[in-house]
């Protein structure tokens, strides 16, 4: 089978949430000795990119994006073990999580999905993340971005604590800090000195890319 055609089918199967088909096609790519990283980027991630576009165009909503992401992960689980180990140290790294005291993580998960499908490496700290962990992990992995999310007003100020701690440690300039979530606004971002606020996940990825380019 033609390699490009196979990538196209995998991409389409991600968009259509066809779990079994993705499994079958990814296994086939391995049988044909197609490099796993190529199948991932030109097939799976290409599909997830289209999902992102459909989301932006409001053809797809959260239920579709979450389901497509599950389909994507089925493919990744098959292919990842076959990637030839190589250093990825020069890739962009993002540390992301829901701030301490809050467990609402759908928005964070969406940003994570979109960011990963843009080829950016994401360290997901999960939800109710102790504030210091954002910094510890960012330092440890050499992150470029710290992304924080919350849906609750009672936990918003945790974001400020993280930024203030970065300043105290004299490492504020090492990271771009991005924030988001229901009660968050540009005004709040300005107030606490965050580098960026975006209203949704697509915007977040675009902003990341533009900040990297600059």
């Amino acid at each position, binding site marked *: 089978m033609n390699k490009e055609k196979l990538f196209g089918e995998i991409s389409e199967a991600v968009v259509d*949430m066809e779990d079994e088909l993705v499994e079958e096609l990814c296994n086939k790519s391995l049988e044909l000795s197609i490099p796993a990283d190529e199948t991932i980027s030109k097939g799976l991630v290409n599909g997830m990119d289209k999902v992102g576009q459909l989301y932006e165009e409001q053809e797809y*909503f*959260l239920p579709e994006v*979450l389901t497509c992401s599950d389909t994507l992960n089925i493919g990744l689980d098959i292919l990842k073990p076959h990637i030839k180990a190589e250093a990825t140290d020069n890739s962009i790294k993002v540390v992301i999580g829901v701030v301490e*005291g809050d467990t609402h993580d759908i928005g964070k998960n969406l940003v994570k999905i979109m960011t990963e499908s843009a080829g950016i490496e994401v360290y997901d700290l999960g939800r109710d993340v102790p504030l210091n962990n954002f910094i510890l992990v960012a330092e440890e992995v050499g992150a470029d971005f710290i992304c924080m999310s919350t849906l*609750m*007003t009672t936990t918003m100020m945790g974001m400020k604590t993280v930024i203030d701690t970065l300043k105290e440690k004299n490492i504020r300039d090492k990271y771009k800090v991005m924030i988001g979530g*229901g009660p968050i606004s540009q*005004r*709040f971002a300005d107030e606490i000195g965050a580098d960026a606020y975006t209203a949704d996940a697509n915007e977040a990825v675009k902003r990341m890319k533009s900040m990297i380019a600059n």
Partner: protein
Amino acid sequence: MKKDQMTPKERMTAFSQGLEIDRIPCNPHMGVTMAPFIGITLKEYYHSAERMAELEIELFKRLRHDGVSVSATLRGVAEAMGSKMYYPDDNISLMDAPAIKNVDEIESLKPSDPEKDGKLPLVLKAVQIIKDKIGHEVNVGAGLAGPFSTAASVVGTENLLKWMLKYPNKVHTLMEIVTESNNRFIEKAAELGIGVGLSDPVSSTSLISVKQFNEFSAPYIKKNVDKMKSLTGRSLSIHICGKSKGIWESVMDTGISSFSIDNVENLQDAKEIMGDRITISGNIPPVDVIQKGTREDVLRAAKECIRKTYGTKKGYILSSGCQIPKDSPMENIDALMDAARIYGSYPINEELLFSEE
């Protein structure tokens, strides 16, 4: 600023009949986040009917707002159906674990009993205390999560969203059970002679499509509305956080009588699309204006809301765009009430309302 000429009860009774009133009604979204006002923690509030009642009564004494209600919270019915909540000392409750995690468990779920399960009995008791104490002056109500939002707390939001696509029939079964839980609560509310308002953030088009709303949420809201109407002749009000413009028509078709919209939407659009059919309420930014702004910021934002909805046929209720955050200055809530008196006293001073400053 004119003094109120009517009690909130007189005002809302006349308002609902389309009769003359002294000023635009004002009903800030409050509840648990206001617990510090009577010197208690949020955790204490959640666990005591007496405290819930005391808070509402004290707030009413200060504000004289146009409706007093106790909310079963967004997760209350889910808790009554078996979800586990976590109550931090001074934060709103969080979901610890949903009642079920597997789609095959849906059929094992049972509708909750409002007189026995979770904290629902506390809510009913609190409402009774409030009604006995101040019910002659103000309408008393209870808040419930909309069926779709309750379902999200019964199975976990991500599961609900994904199962809608993969197991639509099972999700409909889930929705029936949840809707029955709400209906049982509504029966008790009707017996007590109180109103019911739904909050339904998971129905927002920030999360699901119009088509999904029409299939999985709207029919069940309608069942709750129909239950209330069949028992009392009155309908329910609804609040949807986040984006909702795309579903306004569908929400109106459920028979809802009043729609409180989030500050991400525009009240002018709401007036144009919904004003002839239902009462509109909203939408002062709760964080940027009420929590973090000054009295002047609140007055300015309220004036804009009143201006945007001016002349709306089924009436307008001044309110916040969502629940007022914890640690908001009380003076800003006073300002919100005052705005209804300054800009909303009848006959409306159009020159003042449409002046730039």
